[in-house]
């Protein structure tokens, strides 16, 4: 059975220059430039970014301008070095080449940002800090930022795990048992569509701590989509599967664990994905309002002190965490649902 992963297939056209080298056709420098155009220009864009840091005086008092310029030159050199040694680095170089247009755009964007804020203040200054101000936050305010990340991740993980587990079990029970469905379905209809944030006031005076209140809210936001999708997944399993299992001697527990749940798993993952999205929203709101820790709280605090660079720094970290969580979920799904990939046929 051949198992080409998507990334390997994507890598084939990118190694065209490898093929040319193998064929014994020498590449002249201009040809090299042409083959690796985007990467070379990306490198140039990062040089431009470094220069834009150095060419003019800063309008404000930022301590990391020189360090940033050096970092930009290092990145520019790195892009060039990896591209030139493409044959040695193989897949890594191919990956870089695939991302070269993005690196180019990023370099240009950063140069423009630098010039528009730190150098000429085309964008009003306290509200639009330059890149070096944000770097400064990461270097100087790191402990507080890390504490916030840790608090957020802890809160999110706890609430999400509880919500996903409860939602999954509820969904399976409703999908499986008519009498459970009779009682739970109306409650779900009544409570589910309510945005979890609407429970905030209730949660904060009912629960003993703001931490448990937020955990409850995150679990609620996660639980509803997971329940509904799991339920519809279990309910839509074809009767033919149950017939087959029953004629082979399956007991009810086998029908639930080995037929209904695996068949419903693709739906469950849609629910988990939706729950992840809505739980992020609840997390940030809960931290802004009640919890005295976490990235939401950090954002609120930074805004209160007009520390706008801290705000942007926290936003960037937050978006990296959220997209990281979603990537992780998708990876897990791909691993568990290999059978869904109907790619290889014979």
């Amino acid at each position: 059975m051949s198992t080409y992963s998507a990334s390997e297939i994507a890598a084939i056209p990118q190694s065209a220059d490898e093929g040319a080298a193998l064929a014994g056709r020498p590449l002249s420098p201009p040809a090299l430039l042409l083959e690796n155009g985007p990467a070379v220009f990306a490198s140039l864009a990062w040089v431009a970014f470094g220069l834009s840091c150095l060419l003019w005086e800063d309008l404000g008092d930022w301590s990391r301008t020189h360090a940033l310029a050096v970092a930009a030159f290092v990145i520019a050199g790195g892009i060039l070095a990896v591209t030139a040694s493409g044959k040695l680095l193989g897949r890594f170089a191919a990956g870089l080449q695939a991302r070269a247009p993005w690196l180019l755009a990023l370099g240009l964007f950063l140069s423009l940002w630098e010039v528009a804020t730190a150098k000429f203040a085309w964008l009003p200054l306290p509200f639009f800090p330059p890149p070096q101000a944000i770097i400064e936050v990461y270097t100087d305010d790191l402990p507080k930022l890390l504490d916030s990340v840790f608090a957020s991740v802890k809160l999110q993980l706890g609430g999400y795990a509880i919500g996903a587990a409860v939602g999954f079990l509820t969904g399976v029970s409703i999908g499986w048992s008519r009498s459970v469905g009779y009682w739970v379905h109306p409650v779900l209809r009544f409570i589910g569509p309510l945005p979890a944030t609407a429970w905030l006031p209730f949660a904060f005076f009912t629960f003993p701590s703001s931490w448990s209140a937020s955990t409850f809210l995150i679990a609620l936001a996660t639980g509803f989509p997971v329940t509904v999708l799991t339920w519809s997944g279990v309910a839509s399993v074809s009767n033919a599967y149950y017939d087959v299992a029953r004629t082979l001697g399956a007991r009810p527990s086998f029908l639930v664990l080995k037929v209904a749940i695996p068949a419903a798993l693709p739906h469950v993952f849609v629910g988990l994905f939706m729950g992840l999205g809505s739980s992020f929203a609840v997390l940030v709101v809960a931290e802004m309002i009640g919890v005295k820790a976490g990235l939401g709280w950090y954002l609120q605090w930074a805004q209160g002190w007009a520390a706008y660079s801290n705000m942007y720094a926290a936003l960037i970290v937050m978006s990296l965490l959220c997209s990281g969580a979603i990537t992780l979920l998708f990876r897990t799904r791909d691993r568990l649902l290999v059978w869904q990939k109907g790619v290889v046929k014979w």
Partner: protein
Amino acid sequence: MVEQALARRVSPLAAGAALDIEGVSHAFDIDGVVLPVLDDISFSAGPGEFVALLGPSGCGKSTLLRLVAGLEPPRSGGLREDGEPITGPFPSRVVVFQDPTLFPWRTVWDNVALGLEAQGILKRERHRVDAAIDLVGLSAFRKAYPHQLSGGMAQRVALARALVNDPKILILDEPLGKLDSLTRITMQAEIASLWQRSGFTTLLVTHDVEEAVFLANRVIVFSDRPARIKADIAVDRPYPRHRGDPRLAALRRHILGLLGLDATW
């Protein structure tokens, strides 16, 4: 291929069971309207007999198979396996459906292992799974997923999934109905050979008159819905049979006549 695999087979196969169907009637409720599908059906199949059920589309043959499998109780009448009343599904009576209905999230091996796993005896009987897969000639595809198989291969896996349980009664609900004609001819021969060697009682529902007379000892012809038994015909030809056998051709013509389809013959 089948012969070799059978020679290597480790577990002894159970002999067939007798099946008695006594005055079975059945009906469906469709939006409050009672639709009778089976009307006083009675027949018996001896141990190891191969009985084909033939009849017009939608006459209730498949419903009868569901009753034999124990997936539904009949409205009236009774069914017995070796004298014991049939009250629910049991792995001694296994069905191969028209669609292979393999579980897409399981590999071929895990699909075939389903019955042993459900009965909780997979751990000590793993070799039976391998033997069943060898038997249908899919040893190279143990780790494949159902979406990677052709229609004929998928149906072979379904057959292996049934045979691994050593059934006493094998219930075939048009298992070859959706296959192309070449695969169908091959698999007919394979089913005949499997049945001859292992001795299980076989109940085959089919639309294909040629398939019925080629495979079965007995062909039972049903009327339109609600199904009644129109004729019970013995096919007294030795196996292996030849498709060009004039006796089989005559029988086929006779049966088509019973179904009102002999105009072109």
